[in-house]
């Protein structure tokens, strides 16, 4: 049997901690990536519907949220069979409802124009990505910051095609972010 000294032991423990951290982050990215792709696709459809038929936006977005929540539960159930970890559960659902409720509250008090609403919601959602990313992984920060920046560019500089711009920026951005997370 080989003996080791304290320096080697400390180095081995540091290796263990480092790889465990990478595994935990990789699992978070893996679980989050499908959710991002799902919400990205739905957001794309939501903005596209708003662009093509602004009058029906009030129907499109609740449908997006309902489909997103149902899809999130389905992805979580499918992932649980493989990983024994739930990525979306009742607690996450309640948190999302509270988050959306507060957004509606702010939107109602703010008397936003449709364009401002289309800017507020992605920034509001991406803010959570940025804050969560500070703990769970910088990919979330990068995705959040990029989408916020592109949303603001759209708000100030893109004319009538703002909703189309947002379909690609917000929807496409989440899809690309999800694909990027799957690879990392």
């Amino acid at each position, binding site marked *: *049997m*080989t*003996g*080791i*000294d*304290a*320096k080697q*032991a*400390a180095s*081995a*423990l540091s*290796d*263990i901690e480092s*790889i*465990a951290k*990478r*595994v*935990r982050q*990789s*699992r978070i990215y893996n679980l989050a990536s499908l959710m991002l792709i799902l919400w990205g696709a739905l957001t794309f459809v939501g903005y596209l519907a708003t662009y093509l038929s602004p009058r029906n936006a009030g129907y499109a977005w609740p449908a997006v949220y309902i489909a997103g929540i149902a899809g999130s539960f389905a992805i979580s159930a499918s992932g649980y069979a*493989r*990983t*024994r*970890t739930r990525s979306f559960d009742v607690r996450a659902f309640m948190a999302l409802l509270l988050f959306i409720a507060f957004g509606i509250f702010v939107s109602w008090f703010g008397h936003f124009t449709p364009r401002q609403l289309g800017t507020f919601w992605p920034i509001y959602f991406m803010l959570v990505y940025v804050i969560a990313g500070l703990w769970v992984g910088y990919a979330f920060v990068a995705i959040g910051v990029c989408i916020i920046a592109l949303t603001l560019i759209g708000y100030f500089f893109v004319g009538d095609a703002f909703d189309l711009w947002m379909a690609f920026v917000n929807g496409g951005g989440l899809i690309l972010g999800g694909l990027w997370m799957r690879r990392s």
Partner: protein
Amino acid sequence: MADLDDIIHQPLRLKIMAALNALPASAGLEFSKLKKLTGATDGNLGAHIETLSKAGYVAVDKAFVGKKPQTTVTATAAGRGAFARHVAYLKEIIEAAGPEM
């Protein structure tokens, strides 16, 4: 005092066990993911997984996903126990060395 586990102590095997131990029980990692995490080559990783498997520390599951073969490695209960004892041994060495380390 716990003993040093010669099988786990080898640097690449330590990384493999550390990665698998970070997962919930019964969850495994695909070979390609382990390769990425450890930075090992195919042959080297395969040989060390084989050593861990012979010791009963990991279970190797080979299956086809579509037409692609997929190898999944999972830490066994014995492997998790051995890894925990090895980590305890490492901590004891550091504690025994005292604050001057």
